[in-house]
């Protein structure tokens, strides 16, 4: 490992730094265009397609993949599964970064971002599910920030403040689960108001439940996926506890994810039965729906189970990456692909390259922030001066 350590500490022109630098530079240029020329110049949004990938990817996928924070902290602090303790801080960190980036991306998407606090301070549209989403995301971002602070305070050496925050752990965890349940589900419920626009195979009165349950799958899979990436690149930052527990975290989470995927599959089938949408399965959309259900739900369910039974970490890690992709597919389907299915192809939406550019830019900022924080703060190791909380 010594040579790897040298690579990380060197701020020189490594391929990673070059690529990240180019992405950030391009992102900043698009940012200037977006905020001086408007949405028409940078997006393919239209009157038929008011939401593109800045909602479909940055918001819907971003929030789902940031679910690892509440899933892991609930498992450790509420359900008392202490053997997952070393996974909590990395999960909270990615959750916090994920939500912060969701909020950042929303500034690009909405027409007048400086008015984003208006729903709270000017007029409350409480009949809107978007109000629920906005309120919960704002509150949960705050909760995640506070949950993240112990690591920052240890880094800064502020013992007193750190011990106060550490005492709030349980309350924050419960608050986080409540808020996550509400906004993860209401992101799906956003589309309940448009039954005539979302394809019947994806539209269901259970949309809220689907989004909540799949967020648990996303959270579990992201922790495994991200853990395998962290092992590859930040192995030297991990302490003995983290390394000892890491395999157990992957195995335990794989088992849980397998069960939740099985449950998710069943409620999806019940949903199809409930809306009696069976006849659509024969259409083109039906085929795509089957790809999602069999390829991205049932298949990972099976491979997670196999991986957990045979304690095969290789299978588990690959399945986690595949499941994360499946979450992306699902959110894209609901937000874009199966949305406006009734329109002729000439009116359908495909993202502008600048929209993709901003999404890549936002993800890159997240990776850079993660890299900075894990190399400086006690995330992958416990600080020797402090007791665990």
């Amino acid at each position, binding site marked *: 490992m010594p040579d790897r350590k040298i690579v990380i500490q060197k701020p020189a022109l490594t391929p990673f730094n070059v690529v990240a630098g180019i992405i950030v530079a391009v992102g900043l240029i698009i940012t200037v265009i977006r905020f001086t020329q408007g949405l028409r110049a940078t997006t393919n949004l239209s009157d*038929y397609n008011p939401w593109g990938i800045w909602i479909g990817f940055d918001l819907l996928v971003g929030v789902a993949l940031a679910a690892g924070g509440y899933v892991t902290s609930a498992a450790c602090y509420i359900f008392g599964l202490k053997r997952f303790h070393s996974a909590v801080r990395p999960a909270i960190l990615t959750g916090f970064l994920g939500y912060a980036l969701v909020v950042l991306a929303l500034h690009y998407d909405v027409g007048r971002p400086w008015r984003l606090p208006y729903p709270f301070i000017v007029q409350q549209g409480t009949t809107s599910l978007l109000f629920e989403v906005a309120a919960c995301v704002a509150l949960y971002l705050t909760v995640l920030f506070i949950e993240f602070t112990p690591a920052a305070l240890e880094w800064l050496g502020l013992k007193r403040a750190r011990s106060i925050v550490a005492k709030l752990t349980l309350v924050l965890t419960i608050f986080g689960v409540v808020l996550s349940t509400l906004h993860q589900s209401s992101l799906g419920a956003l589309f309940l108001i448009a039954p005539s626009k979302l394809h019947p195979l994806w539209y269901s009165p259970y949309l809220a439940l689907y989004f909540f349950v799949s967020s648990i799958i996303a959270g579990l899979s992201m922790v495994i996926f991200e853990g395998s990436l962290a092992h590859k690149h930040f192995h030297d930052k991990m302490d003995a506890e983290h390394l000892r527990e890491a395999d157990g975290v992957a195995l335990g989470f794989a088992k849980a994810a397998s069960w939740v995927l099985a449950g998710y599959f069943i409620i999806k089938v019940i949903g199809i039965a409930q809306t009696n949408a069976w006849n659509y399965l024969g259409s083109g959309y039906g085929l795509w729906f089957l790809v999602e259900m069999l390829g991205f739900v049932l298949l990972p369910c099976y491979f997670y189970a196999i991986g957990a039974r045979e304690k095969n970490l290789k299978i588990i890690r690959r399945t986690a990456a595949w499941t994360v992709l499946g979450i992306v597919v699902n959110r894209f389907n609901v937000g874009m692909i199966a949305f406006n299915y009734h329109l002729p192809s000439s009116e359908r939406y495909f993202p502008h390259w600048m929209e993709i550019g901003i999404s890549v830019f936002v993800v890159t900022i997240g990776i850079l922030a993660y890299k900075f924080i894990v190399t400086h703060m006690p995330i992958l190791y416990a600080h020797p001066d402090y007791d665990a909380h």
Partner: protein
Amino acid sequence: MSISRRRFLGWLSAAGAGTTLGRSAHAAGGTHFTGYPDSLGVLFDATRCIGCRKCEEACNKVNELPAPQKPFSDLAVLEGRRRTDAKTYTVVNRYENVPGAKGPLYRKIQCNHCLEPACASACFVRAFAKNSNGAVTYDESVCVGCRYCMIACPFEIPTYEYDKAFTPRIMKCTFCHPRLLKGQLPGCVEICPAEALTFGKRRNLLKIARERIELFPGRYLDHIYGETEMGGTAWLTISGVPFRELGMREDLGTTPAPELTKGALSVVPVVASMWPVLLTGVYAISQRREKIAREEQAAAVAEAVAKAQAEAKAKHTEAMAKAEKDKKAAIDREVKKALDEAAKAKAQESAAAAAADKKPS
């Protein structure tokens, strides 16, 4: 069981009170909203529209919208399929070769001013209002620009000023709300030369529409589009051909938009109140389980220690007893040995004495 006359009468009055209470509760619950009383509407008769685009022109003028690229007198734009956009509140589309129609048919598109608007229900900053006169209006001074109203609208009416970087607005027909307040007709209604648009109180328009359908059953389909679609709209349409032939969706259902999200919203207080209780319970259970495990461990350790101690003690006592016994035996042995020696010495002594006695005699 016998029922007394008095008890029977008591039940009867209770039942009577129950029915009156039930009725007033239903009226107060407002679950079946049929629009503000005496709210206004417009009836569009698709059999009368001649596609002259005069309404588009009047709309553009009274709402002070930017001038279009092609003049309103240019009917060539009817070749393509158009929709409302940020510079156009209303458009007329032409439908050719519709089965059962002699010539081309036309349909005017604008905001239908739903009785329970999806846009207003979806807006998280309450930028939309359903006015008591029937108009659905928009307040740009609070709009954040999230465009959820455009997602929500089943008629695809609201549009957005994507061109503007700093002051983009949602643009949509206002039912000429400012004009209505001044007692004027909506621009499009006022100008229509073919009387395809009839303005009035919605409930009267429904009567007029029904009269026309009854008087000319061959001319109209027996349906008033907008009477129940999405819970009902202020603008109504009657036609001689199926509405889908005029690009209108027939699968919208009769559920008003707020009903669609009511269930999801009602979950909020349940989650917010039940989750903390349940999760604290789960936490308490896991804590207690750990505590019991700790106690059991401690008890097991104590028992093992006690057992070991007792064994050691027993061994000790046994050893002590043995040592005592050994000691006693040793003493006995020593005593016996001493006695034996003493006896031997005595015997030797007496033998020597006997020998000495014998010698002198």
